[in-house]
């Protein structure tokens, strides 16, 4: 025990020395010059946390891992075999918004967008094993695609949705084609670079994208032409058609249900893809690229298909996001977004669709639940990424692949 205390003490001392100047002395502008303000509290917090954490790491953690925790038996592939359970979940998902507050539904819709993004990136990272750090670029192409189509060609949501998907897919192919033969970490950096280039272009091409001010006035989706507004210029509005009192919650619920439908379609399509040759090829590629080549599979075209399909779903999500917000700006498409989506995929367990749904919901709810920690959000996010890699890189839930079995 004494050794452990000394060890923790040594680490606390190191923290004091390293964090001392940075956390303990704060630069402050005074007139034209600079001065230093001492702030012992953050420094003390850091030192104490380091001490406690190190002590815990040495004592409690080994004990925890020895505890045989029951492994959760949840798995998407397993769920797919129980249509009754799926049906029930879907029914609940459809009905609850009619009893929930507007804020909650809004949050749920946001979570659904992240689910879609997570599922899309999952194809690239989880199934095919390609680390894409610039995924947000395809999301942006979907969003700005719709915004520009609406602005210049008056195209509404329903027509724009497939167009945005195709636009994103084409970008995926254009980016992927030269880039996919690169090795894993180089691929990561190049995709990061691409994401940054897209962000810079969005910010600087004022004439096209509105620059940092973004694009506004994006039309909301309609239900067969019925707008969800108090009054409409062309045709009846939703509440007029159904003879209801206008309520802003109509639109909120509609958007939520729309997102839900998109997510369900995404889940179904991706599930199906995994049992098709293309999906199996992705997994084979992730396992052993050399073996794939020896079997006549062209690694580049397989990676390209993963890239393009992943991008397509990001395009759909982007289009919906733009429609929901009514206004978009480059700030929604920074590298941090790519990092968040990546964390969702990793947290959910690469490849597991159910895990990703849960992870996306978790990542969306967490900032809301922990409001007081808002300023520490990003700090904890970064820390969380490191800890996740150290403790459980395979994700929270064990993933069972949907496998083909010979029915004898």
């Amino acid at each position, binding site marked *: 025990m004494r050794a452990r205390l000394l060890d923790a003490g040594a680490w606390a001392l190191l923290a004091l020395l390293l964090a001392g100047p940075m956390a303990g002395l704060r630069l402050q502008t005074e007139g034209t010059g600079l001065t230093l303000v001492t702030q012992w509290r953050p420094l003390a917090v850091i030192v104490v946390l380091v001490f406690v954490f190190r002590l815990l790491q040495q004592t409690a953690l080994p004990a925890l891992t020895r505890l045989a925790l029951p492994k959760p038996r949840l798995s998407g592939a397993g769920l797919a075999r129980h249509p009754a359970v799926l049906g029930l979940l879907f029914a609940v998902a459809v009905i609850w918004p009619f009893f929930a507050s507007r804020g909650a539904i809004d949050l749920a819709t946001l979570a659904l967008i992240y689910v879609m993004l997570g599922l899309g990136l999952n194809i690239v990272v989880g199934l095919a094993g390609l680390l894409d750090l610039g995924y947000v670029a395809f999301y942006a192409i979907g969003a700005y695609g719709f915004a520009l189509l609406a602005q210049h060609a008056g195209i509404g949501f329903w027509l724009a949705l497939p167009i945005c998907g195709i636009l994103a897919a084409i970008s995926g192919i254009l980016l992927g084609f030269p880039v996919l033969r690169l090795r894993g970490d180089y691929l990561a950096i190049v995709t990061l670079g691409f994401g940054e280039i897209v962000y810079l272009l969005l910010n600087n091409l004022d004439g096209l994208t509105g620059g940092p001010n973004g694009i506004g006035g994006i039309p909301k989706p309609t239900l067969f032409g019925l707008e969800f507004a108090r009054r409409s210029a062309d045709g009846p509005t939703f509440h007029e058609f159904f003879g209801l009192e206008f309520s802003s919650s109509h639109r909120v619920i509609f958007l939520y249900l729309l997102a839900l439908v998109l997510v369900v379609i995404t889940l179904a*399509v991706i599930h*199906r*893809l995994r049992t*098709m*040759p*293309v999906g*199996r*090829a992705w*997994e*084979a590629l992730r*396992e*052993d690229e*050399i*073996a*794939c*080549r*020896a*079997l*006549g*599979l*062209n*690694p580049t075209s397989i990676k390209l298909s993963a890239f393009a399909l992943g991008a397509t779903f990001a395009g759909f999500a982007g289009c919906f996001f733009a429609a929901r917000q009514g206004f978009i700006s480059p700030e929604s498409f920074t590298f941090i977004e790519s990092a968040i989506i990546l964390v969702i995929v990793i947290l959910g367990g690469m490849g597991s669709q159910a895990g990703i749904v849960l992870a996306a919901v978790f990542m969306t709810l967490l900032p809301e639940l922990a409001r007081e920690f808002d300023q520490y959000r990003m700090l904890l996010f970064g820390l969380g990424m490191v800890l996740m890699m150290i403790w459980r890189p395979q994700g929270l839930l064990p993933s069972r*692949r949907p*496998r*083909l*079995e*010979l029915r004898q």
Partner: protein
Amino acid sequence: MTALLQVDGLSMRFGGLVAVDGVSFEVRLGEILGLIGPNGAGKTTVFNCISGFYRPTAGQVRLDGERLDREPGHRIARRGLVRTFQNIRLFENMTVLENLLVAQHDHLDTRLWSGLLATRRYRQRMRTALDNAVSWLETVDLAELADREAGTLSYGQRRRLEIARCMVQQPRLLLLDEPAAGLNPRETAELDALIVALRDKHGVSVLLIEHDMHLVMGVSDRIVVLDQGRVIAAGRPEQIRRDPAVIKAYLGEA
């Protein structure tokens, strides 16, 4: 006898190291050719060059007259030249059956819409591929293990799966890289019979790297001996057995 595979002046250089130096030989249609030589002779490098995993520095490789030496590995595999690896490369997390399905990727309908809508052509091709897979599993005696994860198989079973995975591609030429490594005598005898059966009943020619002299001398029609990147002898097993250059290469100066 017509030549199926022609290797002409093949050379492979890694920086300053010449691993393969002007190697020429041919594999005739319907024959089993053994490639032997002491460790480091360059045998696997020759395999890698022929199968498109290395790009040879010089020389030509022809399969049935078509040049292979500038092609990437996956295209060579599609032309009918398949290979195994020294450290068996299976898809561990997939089942035995799925491994064989991935190998038939080209014979399946891989178009997105066909699969999503389960068209007739898609289902037919899948059916054919499954039947083919099952038939090969029976040939290599792995049929009961079809749904087991490949990673859970024993070493001998993995070897057989790897060969089955090659054969479902309906190849013309099969390159086996030390298939008997790690097998016990009974398994080696079964392998011997399997290779002969592949040649006789399934019409595939075989190029085989092996250290197990008993196996390679017994099963090969002809043998090529490599030492330090060069061919030092070629001929029938009985001739090779008595060739003084070969004996010197393996045992050093007498």
